[in-house]
């Protein structure tokens, strides 16, 4: 049985038909075609598929797509504003915070969820924010450094 699903993705209204019971990861990748979201375990354990749902981090592989009806979803595909990179993206590049890059989309979104709410995070905040995201290549130190750099670089919110 196919069911229709509609939500905002990176500030655009999108809709697709998907098998009922599908997870959000599959719907984003197969249904909508946002291939910036990666899957690594399809069981909630690696964090690779992290996206933001109404601003909060969620594991898209264990999120029922139908539960996101009408919500606002953010993926790394929407992180960059036109030609301009998000401070997190710049900091990840400068800090060599990616090697194979497969965990990077999830790391970036987990970090964004933190910075959106806590513009001045401590190292401990950063560690907690990415603790559900596994990186097998880089080691976490460059990633933590990049997130802290990005927080310092970002224009201050009130």
């Amino acid at each position, binding site marked *: 049985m196919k069911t229709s699903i509609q939500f905002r993705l990176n500030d655009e209204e999108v809709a697709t038909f998907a098998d009922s019971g599908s997870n959000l990861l599959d719907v984003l990748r197969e249904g909508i075609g946002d291939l910036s979201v990666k899957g690594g375990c399809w069981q*909630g354990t690696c*964090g690779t598929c992290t996206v933001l*749902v109404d601003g909060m981090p969620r*594991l898209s592989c*264990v999120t*029922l797509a139908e*539960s996101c009806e009408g919500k606002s979803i953010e993926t790394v595909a929407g992180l960059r504003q036109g030609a301009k990179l998000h401070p997190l993206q710049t900091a990840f590049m400068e800090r060599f915070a990616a090697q194979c890059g497969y965990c990077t989309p999830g790391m970036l979104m987990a970090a964004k*969820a933190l910075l959106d709410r806590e513009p001045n995070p401590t190292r401990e905040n950063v560690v907690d924010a990415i*603790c*559900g995201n596994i990186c097998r290549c880089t080691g976490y130190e460059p990633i933590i450094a990049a997130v802290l750099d990005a927080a310092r670089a970002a224009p201050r919110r009130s």
Partner: protein
Amino acid sequence: MTIAVKTFARLAEAASALSTERGARFLAGGTLVMRAVNEAEPSIETLVRSTDPSFVGIAVTSGRVELGAGVTMAAILGERELAFLHPVARAVGGPAVREAATIGGNLFAPSPYGDFASALLALDATVTLAGGYGQRELSLEEFLGRRERGASLVSSIAFKRPANEVFRFTKVTRVHPKGLSVLAIAAQLPLANGRIAGPRIAYGAMGRMPLRAKAAERALEGRPLEDNAIAPALAVAADGTSPLDDAIASAWWRREILPIHLRRLLLGAGRS
């Protein structure tokens, strides 16, 4: 074959769908159910959900706490009145898991999951079940004992609010800051004149589901929280447990380290 998803505005409707639909499984946060769905677990044919506002309600009065079973770990962390439960909620997965994981789902999570359930067991919580024909209350202990039988819907969980400093929790993991339980210990340790009066201790990952440390509780009764005084309780700490032998730790290891961590918890050095 695809799965049917049925969403109900009222918990009672969801409860009756759960008992009548073929292969029905309730979906709360989905952190565990969706994994099974992704793996095409044959026993799941219908996912039942509810958007009932009471399912995510939090009511804290001076004496009592009542939580909808759909309350998430993140919601607990956002509630200042529930600060004593923050260390427990924070111990469940990373931020993305906590955003989805519900306390109701935690009652069903197989060991070594179920950290929050151990805390609720130490808090002597009662569980309210929603049925097509009305509600039923039972103690969490009784509920856990029959968890595997039949699909009833947990609508809410309630417990007496512990006095300040009385509730303690520790979780031992091999991965920091987040990891699955080697074991978890939750305890209510009320003191009367410097002596323990009516302690309640629960373990996670020391059996197929959270369980009470009854022998240790008895051995602590009437004693001060001092090294010598708690020794008899530590000696019987593992009595009645049947710890898991899994990839996280062996049963032997769990039994070995249990008294060490119980001691730290009792003497106030537990991780929080």
